[in-house]
């Protein structure tokens, strides 16, 4: 019998079938759409509703924004230019730009000073935010508050110099004695700083500010978004050390100190910021010596700092509580005293855990600085509601102004929260 004939086997493929493309509904954008947008009927309905919503929002705002008028000097002119079409009068932003940023009383020829202070702020804050930058930059960060104070308020340079001198001498004292005895170094340094300040304050001649290089600007002339930035930055940076102290006090096993801290924290967290601002505006001056005049800005800074310190203290307390007990015991067994254990072992770890929480408090606080408009300070919101909307030229331009304020705050707060998420990922040393 002959070998198997080629034709006796029913079917043998002699050549490879060419690969056909996958079905159209299983690839690319169609597949993605089927899985992510129209996987079921309710899902499809949701998609359509969302698309309709997006369409409604865009179709009502886009023409308004794109048609915007940027160059007129009053609402009436702007309406003339628009001639009945929908469109925004963004010219209020260009015309009142300086007022929105600096308030309406800050001297016009001195705008470069806050601008410079802002740029320097970015430089000063960079080494705090990004640990890879050279540590030497922290020296500038330490100098920055005095520089910024001098730039923004102007007046005699003696005041910030004396303030700096007090800190430097106190710091030197702390370096010398604080290593062996923290309490001696700290409280001794504080006393020395007070002495330096009072002597220095007495030495500054009366009226030194009148012919200063930078003309003096009183606090009540500050305003606009600058005021929000200043309040936010000052209060957050002041409240972090205060918050650490309160958190440690609350963890302390000395009943009196613990009691003071608990009462303070719970009291401040229990009342709205507005009531504290009322305290600053109408009540706090009763508690200062009769002849003293503490200006509103300082009073507001005191109250907001107390407010955010209480919240930061709670965040840091969470960080302290999250540390394993072994860390405290290990520090004790190494023979470190309380101050050393906290400074070298506990706080570095606890603060690292608390960073996201602290940033959250900082963002919340920055948003809350708008509340000062209620006690008639002219921050960004105060400027918009007060001088700008009340002026005859721009009475009725709500959306452009409010949208601008919202956008400014959104940009700042969103970047801070993105930074915090980035930092959290970077600091995450787990598996």
């Amino acid at each position, binding site marked *: 019998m002959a070998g198997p004939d080629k034709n006796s086997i029913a079917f043998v493929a002699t050549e490879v079938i060419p690969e056909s493309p996958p079905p159209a509904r299983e690839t690319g954008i169609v597949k993605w759409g089927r899985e*992510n947008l129209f996987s079921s009927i309710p899902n499809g309905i949701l*998609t359509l509703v969302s698309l309709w919503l997006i369409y409604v929002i865009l179709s009502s705002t886009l023409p308004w924004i794109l048609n915007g008028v940027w160059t007129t000097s009053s609402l009436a002119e702007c309406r003339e230019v628009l001639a009945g079409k929908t469109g925004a009068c963004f010219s209020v932003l260009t015309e009142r730009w300086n007022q929105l940023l600096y308030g309406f009383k800050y001297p016009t020829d001195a705008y470069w000073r806050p601008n410079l202070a802002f740029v320097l702020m970015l430089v000063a804050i960079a080494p705090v935010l990004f640990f890879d930058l050279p540590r030497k930059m922290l020296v500038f960060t330490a100098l920055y508050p005095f520089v910024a104070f001098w730039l923004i308020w102007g007046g005699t340079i003696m005041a910030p110099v004396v303030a700096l001198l007090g800190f430097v001498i106190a710091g030197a004292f702390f370096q010398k004695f604080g290593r062996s005895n923290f309490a001696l170094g700290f409280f001794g340094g504080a006393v020395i700083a007070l002495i330096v300040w009072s002597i220095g304050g007495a030495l500054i001649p009366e009226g030194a500010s009148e012919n200063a290089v930078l003309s003096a600007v009183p606090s009540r002339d500050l305003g606009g978004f600058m005021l929000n930035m200043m309040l936010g930055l000052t209060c957050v940076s002041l409240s972090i050390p205060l918050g650490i102290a309160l958190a440690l006090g609350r963890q302390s096993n000395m009943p009196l100190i613990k009691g003071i801290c608990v009462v303070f924290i719970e009291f401040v967290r229990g009342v709205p910021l507005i009531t504290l601002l009322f305290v600053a505006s109408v009540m706090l001056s009763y508690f200062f010596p009769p002849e003293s005049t503490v200006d509103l800005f300082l009073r507001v800074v005191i109250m907001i700092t107390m407010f955010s310190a209480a919240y930061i203290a709670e965040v840091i307390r969470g960080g302290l509580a999250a540390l394993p007990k072994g860390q405290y015991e290990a520090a004790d067994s190494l023979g470190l005293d309380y101050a050393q254990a906290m400074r070298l072992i506990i706080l570095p770890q606890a603060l690292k855990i608390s960073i996201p929480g602290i940033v959250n408090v900082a963002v919340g606080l920055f948003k*809350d600085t708008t509340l000062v408009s209620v006690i008639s300070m002219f921050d960004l919101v105060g400027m918009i509601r007060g001088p700008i909307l009340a002026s005859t030229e721009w009475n009725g331009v709500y959306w452009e102004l409010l949208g601008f304020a919202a956008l400014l705050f959104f940009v700042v707060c969103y970047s801070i929260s993105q930074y915090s998420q980035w930092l959290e990922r970077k600091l995450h040393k787990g598996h």
Partner: protein
Amino acid sequence: MTTLTDPPKASFRLSMLFNDTRYRSLTFQAIAAVALALSIWYLGNNLIQNLRAAGLNISYDFLGDPAGYDINQRLVEYDSQSSHAKAALVGLLNTLLVAFLACITATIFGVIAGVLRLSNNWIVSKLMAVYVEIFRNIPVLIWIIIIFTIMTAVMPGPREFRGDNPTSSMVLDLFAFTNRGVYVPMPFFENGLFGSPTMNWVLVLLVAVGSWFATRKVSARAAQIQADTGVRPKTLWTNLAIWLVPFLALMVIMGLSWEVPALKGFNFSGGIKIGGPLIALWFALSIYTGAFIAENVRAGIQAVSKGQTEAASALGLRPRRVMNLVVLPQALRVIIPPLISQYLNITKNSSLAIAVGYADITATLGGITLNQTGRAIECVLLLMLFYLTASLTISMVMNVYNASVKLKER
């Protein structure tokens, strides 16, 4: 052989106050006590001197004086001859009202947005992410002002509802959205069982509470039957009947009717008027806090590990029961504490009412009363006392709840 080393029995020396841990904490506390007493004395002394210089004293007598100003939005009887204390009470109730309303709606917004943000639907989850980011990162004060502006500048005035060809008309002939507020129909009883309308509503409330207890009984009995026989009887229709029948019967007996707002003269009358400031505050607070609650809800659901869902499915539970019996109870334990602190935030943020002229306690006691009487210290202290009480009450409720849902560990 062990020897116990006694602490050295050296006589007490002054330096031990600082160097000996046994005495050091006492020293520090003594210093703190002295510092505290000194600062209180200093501040108190300043206060007394300043008050004397200004010719003032601390007294709460002004609360009894006639307030002399009107409040539009009020829950209790009030006129300009009522006392400052009454004005504060009106404000207090208004604060509680807006806080209560905003808590409910914020929870609804937050839960919907939080759940939808986890949806498989790409566009929906992105839309919700945008909502959360936009509302969380813009100050609530700006939101309140924006919504208040919508209420006052965009809504039509009552006069636009007039005439033969009005430019605006009522929605369904029942609701009127005007720049003075929103008018909605008001339910009332034509032949109530009691003389006063309040008592009739209390009766309705009592019936509802009764129905609630009855349905609880029915559910408990169903659970008992299920435990005994393994089959759970259907309770849906029984429960519906328990809720609806007494309620509807009561409504029919008392003759429920609706008073529809109507245009009379230059303004609407009848119905319930919800003022523009209240709506602005309510809506802004709910939508702002809703964004925060959405994040809490999302975190809570994601905190339940996938193994739990898989284990429940492996036991043969259906998706709905997996959600109800396994995921939600565990997620709620994570969600509820931050949720309650959001409620706390709503209550405190409601003090921003003063920015839009809603007469809450900050606007009455801390605003007009303070300005009229000049009693700054007394007013601010009372204001703080109220908010402290509210906050402490809410945190106490939170602690009780936390204790009740805590993981029972050995």
